């Protein structure tokens, strides 16, 4: 009898606590690009520190996952390091989602190798040949006789899709490319593998102190075979287009963003947010990006 009473009281207490608990504050869900995830997490932390009552949750999963999330309405903001494909926009409209895009940072896609590799510069076409699997040994580019070890992302990654479109000319990747889970894993693998080459967002090149990771070498990219090669860490080259593989980083919402989301986005595109973008190794948005963002906020 005593046992039954105790169990009954415990169950009632549990149910009571669940029912009477204050309704959870509605969090803004941000999902998507692995390239942007660290940056957006830091932006979110600083924003929440400055704005009482703000509640934002940031997840990764790759640009593809973020885009699918916005279409299936499981998130409020979708981060993507690539543009939406026409098929995705069609799908969104079919489901009643009207995606609106905000450019919140600019990235210089960096081609990195192990520092023991003597190669210094490559053209975009040569990088494409590497990743299509047409070049299997570094000696073809004047390096040492070492097999090329390709590292890349998986098909849910915006960087994977961007790279495929702009560097590989919309051809298939080499079937020998190792598909890693994120930018960080690519960097760690390259540090250990002397024949490695990988592509990462420029923010991932730096360590905690703001220096380039020890053991990593960034390849200069040129457009023409004997042209000047530029580094992705060179803001002037990225802004002017001299660095050929730079890209805007997008955040998408469903239609006009709600008040709290709009406030967050405006803060990111404003001076405080952009200062953090710069601090994290990425590049600030230009004036025309800003103008477009302002238009989309209305």
């Amino acid at each position: 009898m005593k046992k039954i009473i105790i169990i009954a009281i415990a169950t009632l207490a549990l149910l009571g606590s669940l029912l009477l608990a204050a309704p959870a504050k509605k969090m803004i869900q941000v999902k998507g690009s692995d390239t942007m995830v660290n940056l957006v997490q830091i932006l979110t932390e600083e924003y929440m520190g400055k704005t009482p009552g703000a509640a934002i949750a940031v997840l990764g999963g790759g640009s593809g996952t973020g885009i699918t999330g916005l279409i299936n309405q499981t998130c409020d903001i979708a981060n993507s390091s690539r543009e939406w494909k026409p098929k995705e926009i069609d799908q969104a409209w079919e489901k009643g989602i009207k995606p609106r895009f905000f450019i919140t940072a600019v990235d210089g896609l960096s081609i990195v190798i192990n520092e023991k590799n003597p190669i210094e510069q490559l053209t975009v076409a040569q990088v494409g040949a590497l990743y299509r699997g047409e070049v299997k040994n570094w000696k073809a580019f004047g390096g040492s006789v070492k097999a090329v070890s390709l590292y890349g992302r998986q098909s849910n990654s915006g960087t994977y899709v961007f790279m495929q479109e702009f560097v590989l000319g919309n051809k298939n990747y080499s079937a020998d490319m190792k598909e890693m889970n994120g930018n960080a894993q690519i960097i760690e693998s390259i540090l250990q593998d002397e024949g490695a080459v990988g592509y990462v967002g420029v923010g991932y090149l730096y360590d905690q102190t703001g220096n380039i990771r020890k053991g990593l070498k960034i390849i200069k990219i040129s457009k023409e075979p004997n042209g000047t090669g530029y580094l992705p860490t060179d803001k002037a080259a990225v802004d002017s287009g001299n660095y050929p593989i730079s890209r805007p980083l997008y955040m998408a919402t469903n239609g006009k963003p709600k008040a709290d989301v709009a406030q967050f986005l405006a803060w990111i595109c404003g001076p405080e947010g952009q200062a953090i973008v710069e601090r994290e190794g990425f590049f600030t948005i230009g004036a025309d990006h800003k103008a477009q963002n302002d238009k989309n906020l209305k």
Partner: protein
Amino acid sequence: MKKRKWANLKESAIRAFFLTCGILAVLVLVGIFATLLATAVPAFKEIRLSEFLLKKNWDPTSPEKAEYGLLSMIVSTLMVTGGALLLAVPIGIGVAAYLSDVAHWRVREIVKPVVEILAGIPSVVVGFLGIVLFGPAIAKIFHTGNGLNAVNGSVLLAIMALPTIISISEDSLNAVPSAYNEASLALGASRWQTLFRVKVPAALSGIIAACMLGMGRAIGETMTVLMVTGNARAFPHGFLSSVRTMTANIAIELGEVPYYTTHYYALFAIGLVLFVMTFIVNLAADVILHKYQEREQ
């Protein structure tokens, strides 16, 4: 009279509860299979079964031509599982034999719980160990540039299958009647001969069941292989090449595939293939056990 009725009612209620539980188990299994089948079949409207099972290239999001060839991944899964069993079965049966026959009871008191704890390590943690510890070690031993290959996957899966194999094999060895043991020793056999020629054959059904369960664990493991095998799409050239298992592929692609497209159905078809593989393994185990038991009688 009333007390009798109440007791009978209680009996029937408890019996009904157990019956429900049993039926629920069957229903869940049938339900999973039915869902997999129903969601996988639409894939084959667009993909020919021969292409699915025999072509080597899996690239549904390719800008050139979407390909749905599963063969490379089937072979990769079998390689990694086979490698894991090659390591885990001898070691597992060895440890089981050690624990049941050779070890001092104090050693047993320590080793047995440690093995159980090994079973509880999350697969992500094992994967992490693979990247940080085994990867560089494999790269050094085999002189490859990196440790992201099938060997790494096999080693980690062996670690995960070992506790299952050890526990169940040890239980079966212990279940062999001591009369067998004593009779063998009385007839002049050494301890090794007793173990190898009397105890193990007597416990063989349990040992095979243990290995099959270990194999099932290895085939179905996702996170660990996703982290350490490199996930390259190419058909494996050997154990030192980067491979992509079916489980890792589903984990990679399911997050961002648009629902109800051919790609989506194709992923469920892969799930169906995995289900069928595990089913065949279990069926084979059953047949072997029955044949063996028949022979005994």
